[in-house]
């Protein structure tokens, strides 16, 4: 059993005991602990269950690579699943729960899967898709869906705050171990702006634990000296708890700073996402130790040798009284020494290499520790914890030579450089046969815009594993980066390091090498996803030769740890099964982020009221005061209707339509796009932009116009007013303002750059209020100041003036078929005019109306709506708008396209009205079925409904529809889908249901 040692632990403060809850039970720990070290220190080894077989699992690693010790962390609004206990800093009152078990961690029903492992082989999911056919839907899917997932999904709104921070630098250094620090010293002394980010709460990486004498100082002290100098440099910024999570093109990097994870509810934001533009990036991300594949290597108590060392040295935690070391390299001997120095017993070092020698092994032997060369662990004994190991010859098949009782196993299969960032943006790797590792290929780096390398790897991340090599490499790589950035190299020497020389490792992928099927089926590669040596071999056998295919077939490396421990071992086993060399099998793709990011961090400030910018008109507060029911229109919020107490939406809309048709209504039309087009060539320009003629429009007049794309399709419409000889004001749809302004500028800047035309989008400058209805003129006359009579201001004219003292431009245009004035005035005065109109119109029965009443009234008049009657495939001629397409103009955008045979085809669907015989309202988008079936066996159709409403004016359902040869079929009865599986009979009629002669608007 693991326990806390009486002394030691360089990172913990034994003077500050704290308490936390795990599965509801109170545990002690110390400030400086991680959740994992505190649990181990308290004797709680069992921390979770594996994903597929629900096997009992304890911590394997001591860092971000941890696959097993995942917990549901926190509670309520601070609940978060799948948190790695190894990097969760302990705080007083922390609450964690283990995952993926039922009913309890100790007694888990799902562990029955383990017994059924024979029936859950690699590719199990895929096989169940296929055979037998009924089984997936009725048997497997329900079971798999219920058992899928590790942690629970949070149910409450995240209680924390997050933010982003953009920054630029010359050199971004990822990783604050000795390599990162040395690189920062070199670049900092060169005067470059340096950003050095370290994911853990401590500088120095592994060196203080692994031990090294640098420039005559212990690693710990050298780190302090280096930091002192770096902190004195203004051009160097240093951040702890800040992980470079992803690297992208153009020197763009994302880093996550954990500000309050270790102090929940503190004032700072919980996490800050750094969005970094670096001229160059240096990755000093270190290396991760690899596990060894021996039978039952997932038993709680089996850990990475480096992690064992970390727990002893950093946190004063014993993994167990007796720890057997199993290794294929010299580094693990450091763990034997650390355990021995802590007063713990190492019964044996099991070394897969024959004839082990060298200074580290000799030191260990001199301590009286038994070193067995050429040996392997045949299997781990015990169930929920290690009871001992069975020893065999590495060269053999697993015949047990002896058993060694122990409580823990420290394994080391060598080290893999953390090449993730290098690979994120396209850097390639080479296989280093000597150290058995993939490292960045200097000949194939990720390249920047100029084609040169934008990333430089340094230290262990570059395959330099020993402290002297690490610092020499970091210094050299940093100098190369400084030079590439064009800065002057500082005069400083490479730190002198005293290290113990190491003997070469022996690549060991299966232990023992000749293990049979029974042992291979218990050799875990991916601990979290339960992928074993036998699974990868089965995948190879079933034809999954590509590493990417084998990964997906077996789910190797697809867990939340993304295979940090398992990838290299897995592909080596695959290579073995395929009888290929490891580099020709290659790695799977490394994708950002390095470790999972919290959604809140990605969103940053963009949540709650800042989730999306809401555009509000100048009249918004009046609508809110009137308790408007808003709807989104693009990013605008527009009143859908203004329900009165006791009214639902439908009742409000009916009232608003009737009142507008019978008395007077007010509409907030401010969102309509308004684009000023001005200049000597403005008329000529608008004649190209619009399908009809705008150059001939007289000043003071308005004309409805259509805008088509160069493919002839209708993209926008609106009323154009000619202001003066050289100036027009173009109204666009609400959603079209920016789009059409961009469309105009595109043509002006790219095609007709020599035309003298200026455009200006003045949409936001004006509030625009529609005063609509038979009493509209009366209302305006009440305000006074301007002659708004038919004679002074006829239909489709505009005039400037003062109305009730407000400076206004009044347009006599109508989208409702009623007498209608649209009044534009500076936005800051819009609210005051609206309030004045509401007050002055009280006796006339004025009421505001919303977008739905607007839509109903325009449909009653057969006016089209961009986006309803158009969908990007509709031309004006489909909509009965040929009258607005000039036949005289030599050219306009869309003219040529509209002459294509398909566009002039009489068989096109065209706009008509539909009236149901029973007066009911048709469903929106309903099809008009036709006889027979098409080539795909689908029912033929002859049209579809584009707009459909209950018309309060006519007290019946009305609809606009695009129908095959529609205008030729007036009066014909057609079936329309009723939305319930049947059809309803409707008659094809004119799309103008109300006041077809337009008498009401022209009074």
């Amino acid at each position, binding site marked *: 059993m693991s326990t806390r040692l009486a002394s030691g632990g360089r990172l913990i403060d034994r003077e500050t005991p704290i308490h936390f809850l795990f599965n509801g039970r109170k545990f002690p720990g110390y400030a400086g602990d991680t959740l994992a070290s505190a649990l181990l220190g308290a004797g709680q080894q069992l921390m979770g269950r594996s994903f597929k077989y629900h096997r009992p699992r304890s911590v394997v690693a001591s860092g971000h690579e941890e696959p097993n010790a995942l917990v549901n962390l926190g509670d309520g609004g601070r609940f978060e699943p799948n948190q790695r206990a190894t990097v969760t800093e302990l705080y007083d009152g922390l609450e964690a729960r283990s995952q993926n078990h039922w009913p309890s961690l100790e007694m888990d029903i799902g562990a029955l899967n383990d017994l059924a492992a024979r029936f859950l082989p690699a590719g199990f999911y895929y096989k169940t898709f296929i055979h037998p056919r009924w089984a997936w839907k009725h048997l497997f899917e329900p079971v798999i869906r219920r058992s899928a997932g590790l942690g629970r999904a949070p149910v409450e709104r995240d209680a924390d705050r997050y*933010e*982003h921070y*953009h920054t630029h630098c010359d050199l971004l250094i990822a990783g604050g171990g000795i390599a990162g620090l040395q690189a920062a010293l070199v670049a900092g002394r060169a005067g470059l702006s340096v950003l050095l980010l370290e994911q853990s709460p401590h500088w120095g990486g592994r060196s203080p634990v692994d031990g090294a004498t640098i420039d005559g100082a212990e690693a710990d002290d050298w780190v302090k000296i280096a930091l002192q100098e770096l902190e004195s440099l203004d051009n160097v910024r240093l951040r702890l708890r800040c992980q470079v999570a992803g690297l992208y093109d153009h020197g763009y990097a994302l880093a996550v700073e954990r500000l309050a994870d270790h102090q929940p509810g503190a*004032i700072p934001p919980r996490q800050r996402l750094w969005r970094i533009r670096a001229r160059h990036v240096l990755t000093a991300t270190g290396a991760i130790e690899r596990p060894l594949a021996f039978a039952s290597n997932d038993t709680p108590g089996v850990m990475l040798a480096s992690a064992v060392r970390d727990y002893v040295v950093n946190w004063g935690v014993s993994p167990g009284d007796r720890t057997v070391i199993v290794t294929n390299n010299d580094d693990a001997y450091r763990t034997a020494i650390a355990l021995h120095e802590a007063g713990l017993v190492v019964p044996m070092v099991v070394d897969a290499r024959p004839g082990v020698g060298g200074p580290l092994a000799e030191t260990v032997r001199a301590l009286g520790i038994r070193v067995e060369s050429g040996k392997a662990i045949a299997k781990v004994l015990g169930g929920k914890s290690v009871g001992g190991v069975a020893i065999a010859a590495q060269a053999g098949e697993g015949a047990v030579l002896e058993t060694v009782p122990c409580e823990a196993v420290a394994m080391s299969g060598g080290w893999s450089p953390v090449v993730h960032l290098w690979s994120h943006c396209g850097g390639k790797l080479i296989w280093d046969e000597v150290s058995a590792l993939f490292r960045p290929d200097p000949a194939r780096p990720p390249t920047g815009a100029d084609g040169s390398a934008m990333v430089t790897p340094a230290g262990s991340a570059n395959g330099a594993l020993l402290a002297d090599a690490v610092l020499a490499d970091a210094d050299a790589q940093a100098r190369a980066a400084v030079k590439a950035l064009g800065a002057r190299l500082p005069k400083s020497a490479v730190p002198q390091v005293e290290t113990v020389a190491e003997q070469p490792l022996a690549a060991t992928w299966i232990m023992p090498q000749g293990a049979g099927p029974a042992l291979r089926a218990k050799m875990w590669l991916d601990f979290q996803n339960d992928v074993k040596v036998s699974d990868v071999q089965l995948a190879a056998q079933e034809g999954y030769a590509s590493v990417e295919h084998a990964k997906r077939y077996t789910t190797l490396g697809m867990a939340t740890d993304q295979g940090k421990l398992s990838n290299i071992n897995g592909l080596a086993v695959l290579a073995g099964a395929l009888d290929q060399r490891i580099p020709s099998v290659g790695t799977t793709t490394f994708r950002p982020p390095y470790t999972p990011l919290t959604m809140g961090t990605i969103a940053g400030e963009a949540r709650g009221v800042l989730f999306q910018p809401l555009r509000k008109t100048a009249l918004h507060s009046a609508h809110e005061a009137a308790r408007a029911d808003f709807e989104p229109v693009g990013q605008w919020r527009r009143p859908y209707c203004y329900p009165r107490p006791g009214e639902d939406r439908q009742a409000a809309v009916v009232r608003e339509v009737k009142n507008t048709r019978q008395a007077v209504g007010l509409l907030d039309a401010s969102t309509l796009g308004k684009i000023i087009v001005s200049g000597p060539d403005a008329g000529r320009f608008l004649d190209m932009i619009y399908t009809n003629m705008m150059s001939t429009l007289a000043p003071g007049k308005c004309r409805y116009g259509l805008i088509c794309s160069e493919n002839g399709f209708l993209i926008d419409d609106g009323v154009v007013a000619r202001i003066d000889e050289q100036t027009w004001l173009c109204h666009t749809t609400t959603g079209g303002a920016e789009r059409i302004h961009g469309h105009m500028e595109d043509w002006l800047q790219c095609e007709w750059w020599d035309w003298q035309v200026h455009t*200006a989008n003045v949409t936001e*400058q004006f509030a625009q209020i529609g005063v609509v209805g038979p009493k509209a003129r009366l209302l305006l006359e009440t305000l006074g100041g301007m002659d708004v009579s038919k004679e002074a201001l006829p239909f489709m004219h505009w005039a400037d003036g003062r109305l009730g003292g407000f400076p206004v431009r009044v347009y006599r245009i109508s989208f409702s078929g009623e007498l209608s004035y649209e009044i534009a005035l500076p936005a800051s005065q819009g609210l005051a005019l609206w309030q004045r109109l509401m007050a002055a119109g009280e006796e006339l029965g004025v009421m505001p109306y919303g977008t739905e009443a607007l839509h109903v009234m325009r449909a009653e008049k057969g006016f089209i709506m961009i986006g309803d009657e158009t969908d990007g495939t509709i031309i004006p001629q489909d909509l009965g708008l040929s009258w607005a397409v000039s036949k005289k103009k030599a050219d306009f955008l869309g003219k040529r396209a509209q002459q294509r045979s398909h566009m002039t085809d009489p068989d096109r669907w065209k706009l008509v009205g539909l009236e149901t015989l029973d007066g009911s309202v048709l469903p929106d988008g309903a099809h008009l079925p036709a006889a027979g079936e098409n080539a795909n066996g689908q029912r033929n159709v002859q049209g579809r409904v584009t707009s459909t409403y209950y018309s309060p004016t006519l007290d019946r359902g009305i609809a606009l529809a695009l129908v095959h040869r529609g205008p030729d079929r007036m009066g014909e009865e057609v079936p329309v889908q009723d939305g319930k599986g049947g059809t309803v009979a409707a008659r094809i009629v004119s799309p103008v249901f109300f006041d077809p002669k337009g008498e009401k608007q022209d009074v």
Partner: protein
Amino acid sequence: MSETYAGYVAVSAARPGGMVTLRADPGNGKVKTALTKLAGALPEQRKLIGAEIAGQPVEIAWMAPDEWLIFCPRDTAADLVAALDKALDGLHHLALDVSDTRLRFDLHGAAVREVLAKLTPADMAALPLAEMRRTRLGQVAAGIWLSAEDRAHVIAFRSVGDYVFTALCHAARPGSEVG
């Protein structure tokens, strides 16, 4: 929205001022001469300068190769448009009173660059004083400039004024200093 938020940088909605947009081609010698004569000088690319037009103090911001935004006292915007039209009479140009199109926000405090860097991808550390940076703040378009090391100014479209003010306050919240 006349409130001031007392964050680690103070955020306030500025009193409405006058703004005039001017589009004309300074590559046309006559345009350049007329404008230089009127304003005394024109800002270089991306710059914002103080000037006097028709007896009124103004600030002229370069917005694009053929576009300037001129800040003026609120009640003089119409006169400014008239003065521009007069000076450029017969020359292709467009001058419009756009005083209500945008809102302005002022930031005051030592960390104005840092607070803005939480919302804009522009390199705030490198932004010179009196330079108009057209960029985005959060999810909307904005113009940013510094009039002093501890004073920053933001213009954004009127409709998203609430969003911009709230986002600036979020960024300036005490305790969220990046340092």
